[in-house]
C-alpha cells in the first residue's frame, strides 16, 4: 500500500495559496501529510494555525536519511481541536540547512526544537534559546544521526566529567 493523494478542501486551499511551494499532499494509512519546500514550512504552520484552527503543535521531530541528498526529514505534527483532525507537515533538509524556528507560531516548539538540535544537529534560525536539552552542553556529536554508532561516546567528556575511562 502506498500513499494516495489527499483530496480535501484544506489540501486544495493550501495548494492554491502556496502553489509549488507545496510538493505533495497525501494520505497514508488514513493519516494526512503535507510535504513542503523548507522555506514554506513555517508559513504553512502559521496558515494552518490562523486560518484552519490547527492550534495545537503536537510534536516536532526529524528523521535522518544519510544517503539522500536532502539528508533530514523535519516533521511537524499539528492537531485541531475544532476539527478533531491531525496533519503532518514534512520538509526535506540538506545537511547544514538552517530552517526557520517555529517558536514564533507555537511556543511548544521551544523544547522540541532544542531536542531536534541536540539529537540531529539541525540548527533553527531565530530560535530564542538553542541549547542542548538532554545531552550535556559540551557533548560532541548528535546521537540520533545514523552515522553515530550506538556504542559511540564522547570519550573526552566522559574522562573529564566522570573521571573514568570508558570501556566502550
Amino acid at each position, binding site marked *: *500500500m502506498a*500513499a494516495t493523494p489527499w483530496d480535501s478542501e484544506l489540501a486544495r486551499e493550501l495548494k492554491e495559496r502556496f502553489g509549488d511551494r507545496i510538493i505533495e499532499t497525501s494520505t*497514508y*494509512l488514513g*493519516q494526512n501529510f503535507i510535504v513542503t519546500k523548507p522555506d514554506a514550512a513555517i508559513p504553512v504552520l502559521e496558515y494552518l494555525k490562523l486560518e484552519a484552527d490547527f*492550534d*495545537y*503543535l*503536537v*510534536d516536532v*521531530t526529524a*528523521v*535522518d536519511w544519510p544517503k539522500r541528498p536532502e539528508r533530514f526529514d523535519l*516533521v511537524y*505534527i499539528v492537531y485541531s*481541536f475544532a476539527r*478533531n483532525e*491531525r496533519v*503532518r507537515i514534512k520538509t526535506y533538509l540538506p545537511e547544514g540547512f538552517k530552517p526557520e524556528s517555529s517558536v514564533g507560531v*507555537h*511556543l*511548544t516548539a*521551544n*523544547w*522540541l526544537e532544542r531536542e531536534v538540535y541536540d*539529537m540531529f544537529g539541525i540548527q533553527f534560525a531565530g530560535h530564542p534559546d538553542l541549547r542542548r*536539552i*538532554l*545531552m*550535556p552542553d559540551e557533548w560532541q556529536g548528535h*546521537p*540520533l544521526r*545514523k552515522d*553515530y554508532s*550506538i556504542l559511540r561516546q564522547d570519550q573526552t567528556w566522559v574522562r573529564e566529567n566522570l573521571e573514568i575511562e570508558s570501556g566502550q
Partner: protein
Amino acid sequence: MTPDATFLDSTELVLNMGPQHPSTHGVLRVILKLDGEKVLGTDCVLGYLHRGVEKIAENRTWAQFNPYVDRMDYVAAISNGLGYCLAVEKLLNLEVPGRAQAVRVILTELNRIGSHLLWLGTHALDIGAITPVFYCFREREATLNIFEKYCGARLTTHAFRVGGLQYETYEGFEKEVNEFCDMFLPKVDEYEELLTGNRIWIGRLKDVGILTGEECKEYGVTGPVLRAAGVKWDLRKAQPYSGYEKYEFDIPTCQNGDTYDRYMVRMQEMRQSVRIIRQAVASIPEGPIMGKAPKVIKPPVGEAYVSIEAPKGELGYYVVSDGSTQPYRVRVRPPSFINLQALDRMIAGGLVADVVAIIGTLDIVLGEVDR
C-alpha cells in the same frame, strides 16, 4: 555622593533545586531566579535519566523494542506498551481481536488508577499531608497484584504484544477486577474526605499555578492539566482506539486551571476509570487473543503517528519503517516533557513553596521526560 554598590543592593538570588531533591519526583534540576520569596524565572536542566531510548529502538527489532517502552513512564508502563503496540499495528495494518482489546482496556485503566494514586500520594506528601500516601500505595498495591498475576511483572509489565496479548487472562481475573472496583470506589471518597475540604490543602493549591485553556494549547499541554483548564478533550473520546468507543464515560473538567482543579480532575478520572473497567469486564468477548501478526514483524515502508491518552496526557509514537525487521525511527511524543515546559509560565510570580506544588501537579515522570 552615592556609595559603591554592594551585594546587598542586588535583590535577585539564584537558587538551585535538585537534581537530588525529593519533591522533583526524580532527577530534575530546576534553577530558580528569586526576589525574596518570589520566583522571577526558572530554567529546567534535563537529561539525567537520558538513556537514548529512541536510539536503542533503531538497534533492536520491532518486537525486541517493546519492553523498552515500559521504562519511560514506568508508573504507567502498560499505557506506554499499548501506545507502541497500536503504532506498530497501524504500520502493519493489523486488526486486534475484540477480546484482546477489552483486556487491554481493563489493564490500561487499572494502570491509570495506579498512576493517579501514586501522583496523589506523592503530591499530598509534597504539600505536607503524610497520611494519604499510605492509603494510596495500599490501593495501588491491589492493581499491581492483578498485573503480577496476569503477566508476572508488577511495574515494567510488558503486558501486550504486537497483534494482541501473549497471555490469556487467569482464572478468576474478572472476579478480582470487579472486587477491586467495589473496594476502590469508597476509597476515593475517603481520600476526598481527607483532602478536598481541608483548609491547608485548599490554601496551598487554590489559585496556584494557573494555566488557562489558551495557554495550554500554546504550550501543547494535554491530559488532566488541559482538562482542569476547562477544555473537554480526551483522546479516548476524540479519536477512540482499542474499543473505547464502546464504553460510556464522562470527561471530567474544571474551570480555573489551578492546582486544586487539577487535583479534582484526577480524582474524578479515577472514578471514570472504574466505570470503564466495569463495563469492559462485563463484556469481554470470547475469541482469540492474538490477531494475524506475522512471526517476524516487517512493516511495509512507511510511517505513522499513533497517540493515546496516557495518564499524563497525549502519548504519541511516530514510527518509520524502511521495510526491514528493525525500526528505522521511533519517536516518542512524551506528555511529561512537553507539560513540563509550561512550568515557567505557571510559576511566574508565585512563591518558592508553590514550585513544589506545581511540579507535583504536573505529574511528571523523569524517565519519560528524559527517555
